[in-house]
């Protein structure tokens, strides 16, 4: 009788434990999804703040971006430097500087960043769960100063990535999204994404004008994004 009682309790406890753990995991996933964009075409502004201990003030840069789930991402910095990064869905990366021809980049860092950002923009939680340990952070000093919103922490699973990158934190602050990248030396970079404008899937005309809006001075950007093969390096 006692055995039966103990067994019943164990069954109940196991059931409760698994329900709680799956509920927690479910909550985490819901929060992660809430932090991610859920659209195929959108544009926005970004503000990048790089914090280096030995520098008196953060290094701030800003610009605009355009994301297309079909073509890829244009990341255009317009202040204090002028530079554009283009990450295509086909896995090609380009760098464009004022007055220069697009240059194809063959760097592991950009290859990694392009995969990460394209999946983040696509709200691909499968990718994030496979490549990161995803958890809800209890506190983050830097972010807590700014806001008390929910925070999701992504810790890379790959050893090679952990050699440079410690963690990435995602946070919502009003209508803005904050991505905080912390390196192994505890230096951090915050990307504040704001003014996100979504476009209807399939309306190429609108998508095209949205793409052109990233940089009015440089119409080349959209061409590189849409026809990257024309700009591949000769070698």
């Amino acid at each position, binding site marked *: 009788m006692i055995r039966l009682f103990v067994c019943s309790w164990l069954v109940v406890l196991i059931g409760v434990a698994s329900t709680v753990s799956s509920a927690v995991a479910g909550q985490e996933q819901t929060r992660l999804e809430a932090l991610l964009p859920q659209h195929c075409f959108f544009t926005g502004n970004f503000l990048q703040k790089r914090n280096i201990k030995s520098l*008196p003030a953060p290094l701030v840069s800003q610009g605009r971006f355009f994301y297309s789930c079909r073509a890829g991402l244009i990341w255009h910095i317009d202040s204090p430097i002028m530079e554009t*990064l283009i990450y295509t869905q086909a896995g090609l990366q380009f760098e464009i500087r004022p007055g220069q021809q697009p240059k194809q980049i063959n760097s592991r*860092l950009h290859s990694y*960043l392009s995969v990460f950002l394209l999946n983040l923009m696509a709200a691909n939680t499968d990718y994030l769960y*496979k490549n990161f340990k995803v958890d809800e952070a209890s506190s983050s000093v830097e972010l807590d100063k700014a806001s008390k919103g929910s925070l999701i922490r992504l810790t890379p699973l790959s*050893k090679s990535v952990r050699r*440079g990158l410690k963690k990435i934190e995602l946070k919502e602050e009003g209508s803005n999204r904050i991505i905080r990248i912390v390196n*192994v*030396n505890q230096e951090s970079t915050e990307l504040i994404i704001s003014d996100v404008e979504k476009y209807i899937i399939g309306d190429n005309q609108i998508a095209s004008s949205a793409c052109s809006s990233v940089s009015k001075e440089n119409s080349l950007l959209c061409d590189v994004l849409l026809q990257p093969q024309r700009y591949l390096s000769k070698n």
Partner: protein
Amino acid sequence: MLLWRSLFGIALFFTAVFFIRSHDALTIDTDLKDLSPSLSEESGLRYALESLSNGLEKQFILLLVGHDVDQITTAHNFLIQNLAEINNVSLAGLDELQTAAMLEELKAYRFRLLTPEQRQSLTYSSVEKLAVEAQERLFRLGGSVTVLPFEQDPLAWFSDFTAYLLAAINPQQDQIREVSNESFDGQRYVQALTATIQHGALEIATQEVLSAQLLALEQEIKERYSVELYRSGVFFFTADAAKKSKREMSLIGASSLLGIFVLLIYVFRSLLVLMLPFLSIALGLGFALAATHSVFGAVHILTIVFGASLVGVVIDYSLHYFYHIGEERQLNKNRQLYRALLLSLVTSLVGFAALSFSGLAALTKLAVFACSGIAMAWLSVVCLAPLLLPSPIFYENKLLPRLLTIIQKPIAYVSQRLFLVAAAGVMCVCLVWLIFGENSNDDPRLFYKPPASILAQERLVSSIVSHYEPGRYLIIEGESVAQVYERFDRWRLLVGTDTVQSFATIMNWIPSPQTQAENFLLQNDLYKKQGVIEQMLSSLGTSNAIAKNLQHSYLQVSQDNLTPQVFLQYLPEPLNNLCVQYQQREYCFVLISKGSDMRLIRSASEQTIGVTFINTVAMAEQALKKQRVSASKLLLLAYVLIGFILLLRFRSMNSLLMLVVPGAATATTILILAILGQSLNLFHTMALFLILGLGMDYVIFSREMYASQRTLQAILLSAITTVFSFGLLAFSSVPVVQAFGLTLLIGNVLNFVFALIFAQHYSESFEGVYGNR
């Protein structure tokens, strides 16, 4: 006799001490490399090649293949966890601790290390331009991912260098990816895992344990996840070869002993009498094992397989003793028997000792094993027989004499003259065949025939995971590291810089000593007063303390260059052996990327001093051919030496005709093998040495013991026991053992028949000497 007894006592003592001291530490080696001769005669190149292949032997790859990424990822994690629990296995690749240690080491040389792009910037850009670029970089996306803190590496150039280095060393072979392969039906996801066997990869005991553990793990993965697991690595081939050899060793050894036991019990009808042959076999094999293990530190599995067949040779001494001892004691002619035994021993030793000149580790070990085993068995018979055996010894005199008579009947029509003419004819035909015929195949891949499943898995994994050409690479040697780099650069100019960029070599990873010195000088522009760093930091509005600290570090840094040895110590096997030092010379490997133009690479290496193109299969084939030709010459030498011994013993030119028996048997065997469609390889040639030794035994006893009927019966019994032991090797599934066994089976039957033809001559010459003839 005192001499023999003393030698026997010493050998017995040595064997006993060996087994008492190392009974639980016997090492049975299974290295397949022993089957092929050294690829190079130059000791430094040989050392370098062995260092690399030793690393490769320890490594194996497991490849997960499936339709579902989740299943692959989970199975991969399960595999990692379970492999970590196997004591003798570690996961290959740089772990976090190793990487941290490597980065710490590289940090000390950071003022000497630059990527090609950084060198170009320093060479062609002004300080001002570099300062602006460095500042701009800080605002870029991803600029914050660095290895060192900003204060130590404000330009993040060291981070760039380490990223460049790590990407070159580890070309992402362990990443999950989608592939299509002719073995699959459509696309599949794959993920590889490379592991290293810590110790004993080529030892049979370790192989048995590890094979069972990996098999259990493989089955569990297949049961738990819907994935396929494929394996690749030298380990799986050696483990299979060892398993086969061990199984055959047990089967051939047991069958051979059983056959011989039944035959002898039938012939001598006494267990007491059988004690001597079996004691001589046991002591012979025991001493052989002890001697071989003491000389080489291990016994090769093939030595034991071949050694098992020695039973047929060592038993001959006992048999001749049994047939003659009563008669000899009665006639007081023991010396005649001992003389025949001694001559037989000497000729066998000459035959087996010649095996050691083959240059093959396995055959050298076999030569030591055989010579020591035969000598000890001989000593056992000579020393123990008078103490153990009754006299005279009963032996069966119905079946064997009848069998002998049946065989002798057709032989009686062949005169010695006719035999000699026929033998000369066969030898001429054989010689013509050997000179002009397409009769050999020295492909080392014929030595071991791996199961189709292991081979298919190896090919599949290699096609998906490996980036480099299997078995083809370059070795660049020089008196110093600088000379190696210089030769590599010369070779690279001929092949093309872009082609060589993806090749795995230290020369692509670490700058040459000269470039490191230049890099140091070039970096003066970064750290000097009003240099790039000072200008950048000042425009960022920070104090110039960071710039001063960096200037100080730059000026105080050690003037030593980063050497290949220092760097390679942090890399896993086999990469850590990409450069080795041997007797003050440097040897560095270049692993060639798949799909490269081999003709161009080869021709460039032929034009560059110190650069050797290695094609392991072609080189092994060439070396084996060389060994086979040299073994054939050694066989002729063995005939000459034995002829010399015969002349010494019989002091008559006529005695040289005795060599016709093994000579004709050898020539006929070669022609029969050709008719059977067998191409000659080194192992056929090696078996011809034994045909010489065995043929000489038969003809020596025929002559020494005047070809009496009892001598011929002893020879018949000896031939049957030899067929029991060697003949069974002809049915082996290991091609080299099969070649060896088949040659001996044919050759020894011919030896026996030809010895009987010859014996007619002796029995005619000495008819009437013995009453029972």
